[in-house]
């Protein structure tokens, strides 16, 4: 399948921060989560994709068009919800909807109204007067109905309460079902990652740590409870607490235990949170 977004060798330096080199491809029909601590470069990467900042090196192509080229038709195929939206504060939801919906041919008014009702969003209040959670709800209500091919969300659930997060996920799932689409979501929320992500792109201090399919990542780690503490280091060993060992190479670790005559009392996969914590350390 040809990728919709292709990032190759992307680099950008700002003050004392260096992003990249980053290479990443986004395929249709998938949800990719950008995972990393604060300051890992997720937001910068998203801004570069939206051509809101200039890269020092490398390239970004969206639907085959370089984002910094003359042809800007690709912009209609992407909807971007930044963490902090600049320039909306003075407008009410009703005004914002009028402005945005006129740009997008496929604007889905019924979906907009459904989201407004679902979250009970007051459309007559100025954006700047809304709580952070309500701002996120309104932003989503203004993003999804654009019916673009790609949706790019930067920490969209940070200020949502638990029931709203659940609605939010259902909305995204429904949105993905309708047509061949793709979502890129930068998120700290492990629930978003577990329920939504197909791929995880993990970043640390501007560098790409890895691009993983969710189950492949989960299956690549295993925790063992052993009947004795191994003398040497176990293949793929990432942590050890007496007889409890985590290995990032389960096949080799199990071979080692067999050769060393160490009995495995129990074993289990790790949680996604634990794996991410280890990758980000």
């Amino acid at each position: 399948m040809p990728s919709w977004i292709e990032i190759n060798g992307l680099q950008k330096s700002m003050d004392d921060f260096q992003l990249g080199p980053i290479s990443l491809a986004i395929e249709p029909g998938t949800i990719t989560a950008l995972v990393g601590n604060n300051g890992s470069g997720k937001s910068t990467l998203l801004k570069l994709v939206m051509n809101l900042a200039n890269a020092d090196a490398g390239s970004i192509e969206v639907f085959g068009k370089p984002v910094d080229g003359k042809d800007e038709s690709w912009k209609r195929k992407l909807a971007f919800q930044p963490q902090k939206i600049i320039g909306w504060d003075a407008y009410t939801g009703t005004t914002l909807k009028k402005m945005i919906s006129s740009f997008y041919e496929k604007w889905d008014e019924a979906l907009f109204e459904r989201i407004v009702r679902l979250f009970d969003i007051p459309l007559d209040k100025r954006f700047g007067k809304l709580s952070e959670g309500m701002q996120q709800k309104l932003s989503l209500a203004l993003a999804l109905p654009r019916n673009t091919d790609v949706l790019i969300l930067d920490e969209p659930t940070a200020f949502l309460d638990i029931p709203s997060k659940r609605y939010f996920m259902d909305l995204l799932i429904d949105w993905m079902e309708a047509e061949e689409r793709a979502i890129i979501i930068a998120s700290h929320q492990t629930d978003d990652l577990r329920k939504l992500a197909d791929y995880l792109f993990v970043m640390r201090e501007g560098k790409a740590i890895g691009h993983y399919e969710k189950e492949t990542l989960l299956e690549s780690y295993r925790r063992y409870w052993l009947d004795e503490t191994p003398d040497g280091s176990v293949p793929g060993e990432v942590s050890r607490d007496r007889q409890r060992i985590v290995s990032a190479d389960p096949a080799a670790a199990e071979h080692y235990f067999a050769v060393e005559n160490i009995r495995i009392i129990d074993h289990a996969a790790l949680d996604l949170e634990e794996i991410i914590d280890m990758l980000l350390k």
Partner: protein
Amino acid sequence: MLPIRLSKESREPIYHQIEKQLKALIAGGHLTAGTPLPSIRALSKDLEISVITIRRAYQDLEAQGFIETAHGKGTYVAEIKDVLKQEVKTASVSESFERAIETARSYDYSDEEMTAIFHAILEKRKKGE
């Protein structure tokens, strides 16, 4: 929502666990022919598994004739032959026995001791009924 339970402890790949449990639901008559299955994305969210893995399981099940995809209408349980149903049931029972035997072996039980336990359980169940 489908009663699928994935095991973190198992070494069996996730797509295989999904396939096996769906087959068991179909062969056991819990999902009858024509029953619509959740979309790949919806099942992905419910099970917290990527669409890549769910798609793989659905493709395998379709290739083996358990499910059918009607373009634009989603995925349905297919009409399957009794022979195939029987095969799935036998495979599922065999697997449970295999696991029990593995546990017994890890405690160094002999075949005779295992058989004795097996018969004792059957006896107990008979009395219980």
